[in-house]
């Protein structure tokens, strides 16, 4: 039995550690708020110089000319292009791969394929950019007869690869969550296995698959190094997917080193950061909502 003083000291020590626990618990909110406040504080002042209308819809980004103009339309359209290309490739491939792994593949194949997909998830984005630069861009250049293989299409294909792991794993989880009774009822009605997958499993898992797609889109919008290295970096508004272009993330990464602190270009780049943040926040919130609903769907 410890003496009273010792017990009190223990209790004090415990209060001390518990206060740290509370602080750490709240830190996530602090960091998120910090990001929001900083982006607003550094980014919003650009609108005193460039009205929002000109900023969002202007097609000329000349940060160092006199007077400078800041129109982010080229970057926004570029982000749109690469995201659309990436999604158009990664969604059908990813969902098909997930359906194969969860419904069709024998155990041995699944146990071999899954670690490889996890490996892909672990590839740093700069390595994917490097691969796009070295292996994919010459292929794209010769296939489409372009002046340069560095284009939105090349970046989109690389981004598709980078979103695949998350699309596959979340879709597979969604398909696995579909109760077995659904499949058995379908077989009992005489459906083949494929008809069951197509008409029963995928529709039942649709909200989870939607969340997977949203997470993939969020990944593609926010990806920086790959698009910085392989999208081409042209400042014109891209009209074709095979044009060289500069998505928003790449615009920040390539401009921030030369921007004078507190200067107009610096503010404009933080404003682009703010737009990126809001876009990805929205996508992730929706994905999280949809996933929560999917989780509750089959609970009994």
């Amino acid at each position, binding site marked *: 039995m410890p003496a009273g003083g010792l017990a009190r000291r223990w209790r004090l020590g*415990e209060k001390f550690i*518990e206060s740290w*626990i509370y602080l*750490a*618990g*709240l*830190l*996530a*909110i602090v*960091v*998120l708020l910090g*990001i929001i406040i900083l*982006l607003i*504080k*550094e980014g919003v002042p650009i609108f005193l110089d460039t009205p929002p209308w000109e900023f969002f819809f202007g097609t000329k980004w000349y940060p160092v000319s006199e007077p400078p103009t800041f129109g982010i339309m080229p970057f926004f359209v570029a982000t749109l292009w690469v995201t659309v290309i990436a999604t158009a490739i990664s969604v*059908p491939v*990813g969902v*098909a*791969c997930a359906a*194969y792994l969860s419904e*069709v593949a024998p155990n041995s194949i699944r146990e071999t*394929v899954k670690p*490889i*997909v*996890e*490996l*892909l998830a*672990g590839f*740093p*984005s*700069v*390595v994917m*950019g*490097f*691969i796009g*630069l*070295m292996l994919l861009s010459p292929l794209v250049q010769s296939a489409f007869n372009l002046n340069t293989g560095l284009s939105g299409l090349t970046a989109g294909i690389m981004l598709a*690869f980078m979103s695949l792991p998350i699309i596959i794993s979340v879709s597979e989880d969604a398909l696995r969550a579909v109760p077995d009774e659904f499949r058995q009822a379908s077989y009992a009605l005489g459906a*083949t296995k*494929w008809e069951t*997958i197509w008409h029963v499993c995928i529709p039942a898992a649709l909200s989870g698959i939607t969340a997977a797609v949203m*997470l993939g889109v969020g990944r593609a919008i*926010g990806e*920086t*190094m790959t698009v*910085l*290295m392989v999208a081409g970096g042209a400042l014109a508004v891209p009209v074709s997917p095979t044009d060289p272009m500069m998505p928003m*993330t790449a615009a*920040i*990464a390539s401009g*921030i080193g030369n921007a004078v*602190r507190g200067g107009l270009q610096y503010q404009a*780049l*933080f404003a682009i950061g703010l737009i*990126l*943040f809001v876009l*990805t926040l929205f*996508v992730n*919130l929706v994905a*999280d909502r949809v996933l929560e609903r999917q989780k509750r769907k089959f609970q009994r």
Partner: protein
Amino acid sequence: MTTRTGAASRQISQQVAYGFLIAATAVVVIPVLVIIIQIVVIGADAISCDFLSQAPSQAGKAGGIFPAILGTFYLMLGTIIVALPVGVLAGVYLSEYARDNWLTRTVNMAIVNLAGVPSIVYGLFGLGVFVLMFHFGMSLLSASLTLACQALAMTVTTSREAILAVPREYREGSLAVGSTRWQTIRHIVLPQAMPGIITGAVLAMSRAAGETAPILVVGAAFFLPGLPHSPFDQFMALPYHLYTVAAHIPGMSRTTIWGVALVLLAVVLSFNVLATIIRLRSRKRRYST
């Protein structure tokens, strides 16, 4: 008769559909293998003792990449020193202390969103807060803190899940013999949750080793005359080195670039594999007892 041909055509359409599913899986798997084989085969020619232990010379065209390797290890260390304790404490808070109220829901939502913030935005955050506001400058410290903020979502989530997986009875047994809440956490819950927590930490380190965009903003250097001696020094790092030699230095020898890629990939993937091994071993142990 019609039903039989109907069944046959349905069988055929099933075969066609399976063919598509298998093709999709091959489209995912084969490029991954091709990439790894390419990097290993071409990069291996560049690997030598000098390459791993010497400083670069002639703008990276000759010499080695030792300062970049060292910088990356410093970054991983700095990131995990900050992100792991905070992540574990926050995990304890969310699993043991937090009640189901608006505050807890807000914390959870913040974590989900932190995980989705683009890495370049973390870079802007690090630049604004650590480099400029706190006057840490373009330094190892700023970069580590930035990467730690980014790793936070992962260490919190994995710690929380690992702690929640500890059976309730363990806590009740400990509380029943008169331990306080913190003693129970410290001596019963955390040791049980340790493999899960470590797995998350190792994954977070692997992520920090490969992250490029944030350190590009907060102060990685392509070439430095000396090694960093304090947290306030600038540093070189593998991913930034790869970016520069691949995209910005003309006339770079092919093998050197692939060599840098190989070293980076080896560091990142070995930590990934390590995390998998820890996870599998702890799972086996749990099933055997």
